[in-house]
C-alpha cells in the first residue's frame, strides 16, 4: 500500500475494550474495517448507504452507522460492536437475553444494529414507553417483520436493567 497518508494509513482504536490497529485504505468504511480488517463479522452490512441500520455500532458510546463513517475517522476512538455487549463469554447482555426469550430475531440480520441502537437508547431513557422504543428503532429495518417481539423484549430488558441498577 502507498506510503502517502492521504491514501492509506494505520488506524488505531479501542474495539470492545481492546486496542486494535490495522493499515487500511482511507476509503475503507468503519463497518468494513471491523469486518475485514479486524475479523469482527458481528456487525452486518445491509444497504451500505445509511438506511437499514444493520451496521450500527457505538463510537464513544453513541450509536452511528458504520457504513457512513470512514475507518480513519475512528482513530483514537472507542468502538463497541455487538461482540462487546455481553459481560463475558458465558452470559448475555440483558437486551440479548430478552431478545432470545421473546424470539425478537428470526434471521438475525438486523439484530446487531437493533442491539447497539437500543443500548444507547436505554442508557438515556431507562423507562421508555412502547412508542419511544418504536421511534428509537425507526432507523433499523427488520425484514422478518419482528418489530412486535423486539419492542416487547426491549421493554423487558429495560425493566431488568433498572432492577440491576437499583
Amino acid at each position, binding site marked *: 500500500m502507498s506510503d502517502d497518508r492521504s491514501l492509506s494509513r494505520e488506524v488505531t482504536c479501542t474495539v470492545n475494550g481492546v486496542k486494535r490497529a490495522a493499515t487500511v485504505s482511507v476509503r475503507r468504511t468503519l463497518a*468494513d474495517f471491523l469486518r475485514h480488517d479486524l475479523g469482527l463479522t458481528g456487525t452486518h452490512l445491509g444497504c451500505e448507504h*445509511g438506511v437499514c441500520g444493520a451496521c450500527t455500532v457505538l463510537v464513544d458510546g453513541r*450509536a452511528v452507522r458504520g457504513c457512513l463513517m470512514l475507518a480513519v475517522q475512528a482513530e483514537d476512538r472507542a468502538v463497541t460492536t455487538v461482540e462487546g455487549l455481553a459481560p463475558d463469554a458465558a452470559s448475555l447482555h440483558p437486551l440479548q437475553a430478552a431478545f432470545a426469550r421473546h424470539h425478537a430475531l428470526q434471521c438475525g440480520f438486523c439484530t446487531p444494529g437493533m442491539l447497539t*441502537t437500543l443500548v444507547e437508547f436505554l442508557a438515556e431513557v431507562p423507562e421508555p414507553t412502547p412508542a419511544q422504543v418504536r421511534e428509537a428503532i425507526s432507523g433499523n429495518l427488520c425484514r422478518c417483520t419482528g418489530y412486535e417481539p423486539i419492542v416487547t423484549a426491549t421493554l423487558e430488558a429495560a425493566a431488568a436493567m433498572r432492577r440491576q441498577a437499583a
Partner: protein
Amino acid sequence: MKPPPFAYHDPRTLDEAIALLAGLPNARPLAGGQSMMPMLNMRFAQPDHLVDLNRITGLETVEVEPDGTLAIGAMARQRDLERHPAVARGCPMMVEALGQVGHRQTRNRGTIGGSLCHLDPAAELPLVAAASDAVVVAAGPKGRREATFADFARGFMTPGLDPDEVLVAVRLPALPAGAGCCFLEFARRHGDFAIVAVAVTLVPDAAGRIALARIALGGVGPVPLRLPEAEAALRGAAPGAEAFGQAAATTRHLDPLEDALVPAWYRRHLAGVLLGRALATAAGRMGRA
C-alpha cells in the same frame, strides 16, 4: 459498495482546511457524512480530495450572544442540538424539527452545517433556517462573510458557497417576546425526508393579536419557500380559525415539485392542511408580548 478512490485530508485548523480546499483540484469538505457518505458509496459524488472537518476544534459551539442571537457552529451535531438547553430556549422549533431529522444514529453524526450545505429541498434544518431569518457565516481565503439564509439558498441543492469556502456558523436572531412556534411535517415513515413540512412563528402584540408571522414551507419548492402573502394576511389579525383559514388558502396558488411518487396537487393539498394545523398550534403556544 465502496466509495470511489480519493485522497483524504484531516486538517486540525480551519485555515488548513480552507487552504486545502483552495489548493486541491475537485476537493470537497466532509462534515458529519450522513449525506456525503451515501453519495460517495453510491458514487454520485466523486471528489479527488476529501477534506474532513471533524478534527477541527471550535466549530461545534453553541453560544447565546448578548442580544439573544443564537450562534451555532456548523459542526454542531444534530443530536447535541436536539438536547441543548440554549437551543430549546432560543429556537424551540429546531428541537421539534430535529426529532424528525433521520434517526438517532444519523443525528449522532449529522451536523447542522452539513444539512444546510446539502440543502435538500425537503430537509428540516434548512426550513428552520428559512423560517428563522437565519444568517450564515462562511469562511474562505479572503476571510469571513455573512449572508442571509435566503441569499445562501441559491437553488436546488445549491448553497451559495465558493468551492474554497466553508460554512462555519449559523446565527438565529432572538425570538421576540411571547413568540409561538411550530414545526410540522408529513412523511410516509418516521425519519424520512418530508413530503411537505411547515415551519411557523407567530409573534403577539400587546393586545394578543398577531404582530408578525413567519411562515416557510419545505418539500414544495427547490429551496425552502417563505409565504409572504400568508404572512401579510396574518399581520394584525386576531388568532383564530378565520385568519388561519385565509392564510392557509394562499397555498392554493403554489406550484409544487412533482415526482414519481408524489403529484403536485397532493403536495399543494398537504401544504394547506399542515399550515392550518401549524398556525393553530403556534398560536396556542404564544405568550405575552
